[in-house]
């Protein structure tokens, strides 16, 4: 009887059994990583041009414009919520900056600042309504998605007199804003665009936030079990509102890139992109039910999307098959994810 309660040794000998490999397999993004490597090798074989540095930079750029949003959306999904307004909110932000600067003929940086405020406010409103009404985020953000779509179209016509914003390329501050949000960097002969760097920085910051700060702990908790989190004193309301504002911030970054890369914004754009962001996060190992996932996973998910999207072009395949192929890719990546995770959990 007395042997039952031996004080445990400083380091339990059973810990060793769960070694490096199975620890790695336990990570949420492992399925996506395997999928990404397979896809990379696959396209390297079928389309040799894929391996050229400049081609790869293009793939990275295509990935980054999904990936920047996928970071925010992944965090939000870990926190147990959806944001269907994320795609249109990007355009709302770009429209705000563009139309405000144009209409009042002010330095575009003023518009950029205002757009940030608007983007964060959209996120705040999403989160606040969600927490006040306790409605599913699916419904709340579907409503804001529709409202923003309407506002984008209506206000653009009202202010600019057209469905696209006037070009602001000649206005003060445009060049410096472009240098930040839509610059081309040539590094060792390879053209890299600024969203790629912004994306990588965002992923690094959010990963750190998620794994190494109190807020990160709270994000996992509110997504895993909201009531439990509330019971132990986690500020559930502000964590969730903050997550929506995080998506708003990412939307602002991408919106500014859209604006300064193309000078003008069309008010009908962005619809449907919210699903790409969610898909990227899911491929990256975020659970649809919340409480599990990683920022890096969302990034890898976006990278898979970018590779598939651009790889088909490099491989010179009949584009009729693109959507089918993309769907298949998503399915396979998520299945691999599932299998690997089950195997890791059963160990």
């Amino acid at each position, binding site marked *: 009887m007395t042997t039952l309660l031996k004080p445990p040794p400083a380091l339990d000998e059973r810990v060793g059994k769960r070694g490096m490999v199975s620890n790695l397999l336990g990570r949420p993004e492992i399925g996506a990583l395997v999928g990404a490597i397979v896809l990379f090798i696959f396209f390297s074989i079928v*389309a040799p*041009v894929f391996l*050229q540095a400049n*081609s790869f930079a*293009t*793939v990275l*750029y*295509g990935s980054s*414009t999904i990936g920047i949003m996928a970071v925010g959306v992944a965090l939000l999904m870990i926190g147990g919520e959806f944001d269907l307004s994320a795609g249109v909110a990007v355009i709302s932000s770009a429209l705000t900056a563009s139309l405000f*600067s*144009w*209409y*009042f*003929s*002010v*330095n575009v*940086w*003023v518009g950029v*600042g*205002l757009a*940030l*405020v608007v983007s964060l406010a959209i996120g705040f409103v999403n989160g606040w309504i969600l927490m006040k009404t306790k409605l599913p985020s699916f419904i709340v953000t579907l409503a804001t998605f529709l409202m923003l*779509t309407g506002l*984008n*179209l209506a206000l*653009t*016509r009202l202010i600019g*007199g*057209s*469905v*696209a914003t006037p*070009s*602001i*390329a*000649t*206005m*003060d501050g*445009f060049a410096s804003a472009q240098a930040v949000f839509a610059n081309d960097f040539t590094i060792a002969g390879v*053209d890299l665009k600024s*969203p790629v760097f912004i994306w990588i920085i965002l992923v690094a910051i959010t990963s750190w936030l998620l794994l190494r700060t109190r807020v990160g702990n709270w994000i996992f908790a509110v997504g895993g079990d909201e009531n439990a989190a509330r019971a132990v004193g986690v500020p559930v309301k502000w964590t969730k509102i903050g997550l929506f504002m995080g998506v708003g911030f990412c939307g602002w970054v991408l919106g500014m*890139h*859209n604006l300064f*890369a*193309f*000078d*003008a914004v*069309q*008010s*009908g*754009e*962005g619809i*449907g992109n919210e699903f790409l962001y969610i898909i990227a996060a899911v491929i990256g190992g975020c659970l649809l039910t919340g409480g599990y996932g990683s920022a890096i996973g969302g990034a890898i998910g976006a990278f898979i999307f*970018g590779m598939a*999207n*651009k790889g088909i*072009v*490099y491989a*010179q395949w009949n*584009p009729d098959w*693109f959507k089918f192929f993309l769907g298949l890719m998503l399915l396979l990546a998520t299945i691999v994810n599932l299998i690997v995770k089950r195997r890791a959990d059963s160990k």
Partner: protein
Amino acid sequence: MKKISWQRLAVVAAIVPMLALSACSSSGGRPADTGGSNGGKVATTPSIKIALITHAAPGDTFWDIVRKGAQEAATKDNVDLLYTSDPDGGRQAQLVQQAIDQKVAGIAVTLAKPDALKAVLKKAEDAGIPVVSLNSGEDVFKSVGAFTHFGSDENVAGAAVGTRLAEEGVTHPLCVIQEQGNVALEARCAGVKTKVPGTEILYVQGTDMTQVASTVTAKLQSTPGADAIIGLGAPFTATIVKAVGALNLAAKVKVASFDLSGELIQSIIDGKVQFTVDQQPWLQGYDSIDALWQYYRGGFMVGGGLPVLTGPAIIDKTNAPAVLKFAKEGIR
């Protein structure tokens, strides 16, 4: 205490640059005077109500111009214009029904999905409402009871682009379709292909400009033989121009376009785009409304039972400066 100081810092960090930069922009921005285009005399005929019902998706520049043309005709002809649109055929039919319910004097309708509209246009005919069609449906307008059609054949427009490219020695153009499965866009590229057999189609996701840019870049990188690239809409062409420029291919890859915008014409003047083919959407809107008004003015029926072509019109360096002014006004 520490928390508050961080918040303060953030507020200050956000506000200071805004204040510092709140000086007015020295160039660009909203013109001080937009100028009036509706200075003409208004017709003395009694006011009538005419409905313009299109299949436009919200937020499309092209339809904006159609609407502007229609509005100008309406203003001039003392017409009360009711503009509605829905890309879904069934819902567009409902809009036509609503117009009949409102007892409009005439209906101008786009026939992108004629089968969905057949029944409801029969009702309009029975109610004695004159109908004209515009933009799409030049082969079916008669069968649904419209007395004429205003539009530009997409295939003919495509062929015009193809002919022009062939003249310039292009053999391998890329035709960039921003909406897979769109009949009109496919027809444009098919038209190009009739004149330049080496034409290759590239599909991009038009709802996301960054994806348009990156996919075009990818295609150009992987297709060294490409010697021209065609955008099927002004905003997409603008993005294509940037992608070509970023790859330093401007000397090798010619850019052609469909449709018009102020920026696009500027690009033609600057030599970044060779030419564009305009189906003159403003005319489609203007003429449809005007034709319906003429019907009431004197029982006129323009067209003589045949479609009235509003294009294609090719705009290149030679005539671009003349068009620029109108494009900036938003009517080209």
